């Protein structure tokens, strides 16, 4: 197995593009290193992107925030501007693993690992985040929800890797929230995760909303019909009930070791209701 630590995006994509066999991008390594210990895992090349310029930076731009692919989740929680703008995204990222894991793990890695249970992904999708993908033919920008394809599979092409996550500037009177269900308080993996982002008009009526569901299908679900149930409402009980029902309906989970399908559908609704209320309060709604 070859280990490479390029210093430019060009070198990194060239290495990945020219790799024979299976090549992997290493950022925090909290998924990859665990997989590498498994007997079933074989890698021909590992490209560590932590030395690539800009990968460890969080920058505030005119359009919002740009989060380098190697920024550990713990650093997100230490960035006051990001916490103020996207508390739901930051909370989601800091639910991953444990305190120690959060010191290494990255949102880009969480996304590329392509687990349907990834905590940061529904929050990013709800926030309308996009990713900048670097590849041999240059860069392209795609919505977060278009990256995962199926469990363990992404839409990235050979030679490509995520260079940064792009979060927009939050709209006025907006808020986001992420809640997940795990049997344990921490060091666990989401049985269901729900991200909600909404913006209010001056009267406190929901103007726009995005709802994303995790761990209820092969990939993150952007539940547009669920979002529609609360748009135009002041998030009254009827709206919350409709949201819960729509989220349960949008869920297409399986029975597995982490929970039953019926349980997941039900809890998706419960968490959507609770997350929406938090987002609504954060947006200034009363």
């Amino acid at each position, binding site marked *: 197995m070859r280990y490479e630590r390029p210093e430019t995006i060009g070198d990194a994509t060239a290495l990945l593009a020219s790799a024979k066999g299976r090549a992997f991008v290493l950022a925090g390594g909290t998924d990859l290193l665990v997989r590498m210990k498994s007997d079933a895992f074989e890698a021909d090349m590992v490209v560590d992107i932590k030395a690539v310029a800009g990968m460890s930076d969080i920058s505030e731009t005119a359009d919002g925030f740009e989060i380098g692919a190697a920024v550990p989740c713990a650093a997100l929680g230490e960035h006051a501007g990001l916490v103020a703008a996207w508390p739901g995204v930051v909370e989601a990222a800091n639910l991953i693993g444990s305190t120690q894991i959060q010191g290494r793990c990255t949102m880009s890695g969480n996304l590329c690992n392509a687990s349907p249970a990834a905590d940061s992904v529904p929050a990013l999708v709800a926030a309308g985040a996009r990713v900048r993908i670097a590849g041999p033919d240059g860069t392209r920008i795609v919505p977060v929800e278009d990256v995962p394809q199926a469990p363990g599979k992404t839409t990235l092409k050979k030679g490509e890797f995520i260079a940064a996550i792009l979060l927009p500037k939050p709209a006025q009177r907006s808020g986001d929230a992420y809640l997940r269900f795990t049997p344990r308080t921490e060091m*666990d993996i989401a049985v269901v995760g729900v991200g909600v982002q909404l913006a209010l008009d001056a009267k406190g009526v929901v103007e726009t909303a995005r709802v994303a569901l995790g761990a209820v299908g092969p990939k993150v679900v952007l539940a547009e019909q669920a979002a529609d149930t609360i748009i135009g409402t002041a998030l009254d009980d009827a709206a919350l009930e409709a949201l819960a029902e729509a989220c349960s309906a949008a869920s297409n989970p399986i029975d597995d070791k982490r929970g039953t399908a019926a349980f997941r559908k039900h809890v998706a609704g419960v968490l959507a209701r609770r997350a929406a209320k938090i987002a609504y309060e954060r947006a200034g709604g009363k």
Partner: protein
Amino acid sequence: MSFDAEFRNQQFKSVGSRPLRPDGIDKVTGRARYGADFNMPGQLVGRVLRSPHAHARIVRIDTSRAEAVKGVKAVVTAADLPDLTNGDAELLHILDNCMARTKALYDGHAVAAVAAIDAKAAREALKLIEIEYEVLPHVVDVDAAAQSDAPLIDETLFTGGVEPKPAKPSNVANRSEFGHGDVDAGFAQADVIVERSFRTEQAHQGYIEPHACVASCNPDGTADMWVCTQGHFVYRQICADLLGLEVSKLRVTSSEIGGGFGGKTHVWAEPVALALSRKAGRPVKLVMSRDEVFRASGPTSATSIDVKIGARKDGTITAAVAHLRYTNGPYPGMWAELGAMTSFACYDLENVKTVGYEVLVNRPKVAAYRAPSAPMAAFAVESAIDELAGKIGMDPVAFRIRNAAKEGTKSSYGPVYGPIGIGPTLEAAQSHPHMSAPLGPNQGRGMACGFWFNFGGQTCTDLNVNADGTVTLAVGTVDVGGSRASLSLIAAEELGIAYDDVKAVVADTATLGYNDMTDGSRGTFSSSMATISAARNAIDVMRHRAALTWDIPVEDVVWEDGHAKARGENYGNLAPLSVKDIAAESGKTGGPIAGHSELVADGAGVSFATHICDVEVDPETGATRIIRYTVIQDAGKAVHPSYVEGQYQGGAAQGIGWALNEEYIYGEDGRLQNPGFLDYRIPVCSDLPMIDTQILEIPNPNHPYGVRGVGETSIVPPLAAIGNAISNAVGVRMSHIPMSPPRIRAALDGGAGS
């Protein structure tokens, strides 16, 4: 010299204090050497190949391609571990479990092993071992396996304990029955009867340190092994038997142990490591991965239990019956029997009957887990008792007090009790502030009792007084819970010296006589008895040395407060001699001073506990939080109260995990779905409240200081205490462990507790 173990009440100086443990610094600084921390020159990496099938006949194994891999020094299969068990079925089962002989009996069953110069070569070799399997139908569920049409795990097995002998083989290996009186007559007298079925899923001990050993077979027929174990003498005996070694030629050294809980009382990989080393001619280190630990070592039984209890309106239980079916893995054990013995041990019953059925399934061989088999039986019985108390309108604690066993009670499993602690723990619970604290919305309180036998066993100890008067204590029971500290306190107490002047070590198998392992809560009980005996023997030696120094008859020398004192008016001018004084002169008075002890520590006092638990259940998600937990248990005498409390808290913590989330989950294919800590959910710190403890001390009459074992009983009540608390919180009787969020949600939706 005979040893008088009778309890004598006394004021203690060292016993009952809370000094730091001698192994603490090493453990917190990372210097402590655990199983995988031993290394030898030329050591090879051992790896085990495991069956992916739940049940399959091994048609053919071809290791030639694996042997050809560069760096591979040995490949072993069952052919390299010939059957030397000489008709001992139990030993043959251990051998077969270490390396499948004709059939793979569960997902993870070892089928071959390699030793290579590095992990890469070993891994490559594993992939090149060719095995042709004939996959057979499998069964993993306890009730399904007991059916007459279930796939047979052992075609030669006929249910034992049944007359006449059955005509057809069965997965039910044995039936056992306990009790007394006439239960039918008892139920006829009952005003209220509760009858209910319960299930518990299979749990693993979840020790943080995986099994690990280094084995080194020498060309001269001797061998050494360094291993993480709860009992190195027992490992030595079993490994010597399986490999055809003389016991004296196999020297086993136990490492520090990162948790055992019964799971390290059984050999798994050690005979395989020895066979690899023997074949390769080099030392072999074999360390299990977590996946292997889950798939191939350890777990306790999954159970299915029917309970029926009747009582009069005044609260007297008139009859109690339990039928208990326990999975054993693929080999017969006595797990249901232990469940049947412990079921009703807390109560004074006129009519009681328990029947245990040992059920073979295609799951790993069941191993002891902290008070093995008792927690599941207690879950079923204590849940039914709670329901019964509710039906006759009695407080659950008062109902239990009314029926509690006491001194003189004939226990449900036979013996008549001496002085016991069930009544006092219940009375302490009744008056504990926890019992009357207010509860909020969605909260519920539950309580339950538990029993464990405790064990004594063979013990051998050496106590050496060094020239500077400090003492080295060599014990043969592995320290799994702070016993080196406790035994140092005991030696200090008996000799009348300071705790800091005693250093306890766990000796290897070549330097002490045989010791049973640290199981049955026997470590501190039995080794403290042997330590007291050894100390008294050393005191005798020191009295003789003082007599020699003073040139007076030894009968005139007494031992008081750590000093030899001349007794009688003629010796008024003789200043008492301390241990240090006598030790300093030992070279001139007869050489080194030592006390030795070998004994069978009989009279381990039975142990009882009562637990109280408050939970809060989120009715929308089924998530349970333990918000308050109290353990009340009889310790006889708490030698080191902090470590007694640690045992109480540890048992409760493991019980909480088992009650709420831990379970083996098998797929349709019979393969384990969750062999890792991500999906086998033991609790993390933030899942637990501070677990409050209350130590009761009802002296054990058969120990000089009144000590009882304390390690196991604390895991017996939690499943039931939490089950009762959740049932009270949600208003539905929970009957299936673990009470995971999906199960609680389903119970709330459907009204049934599973």
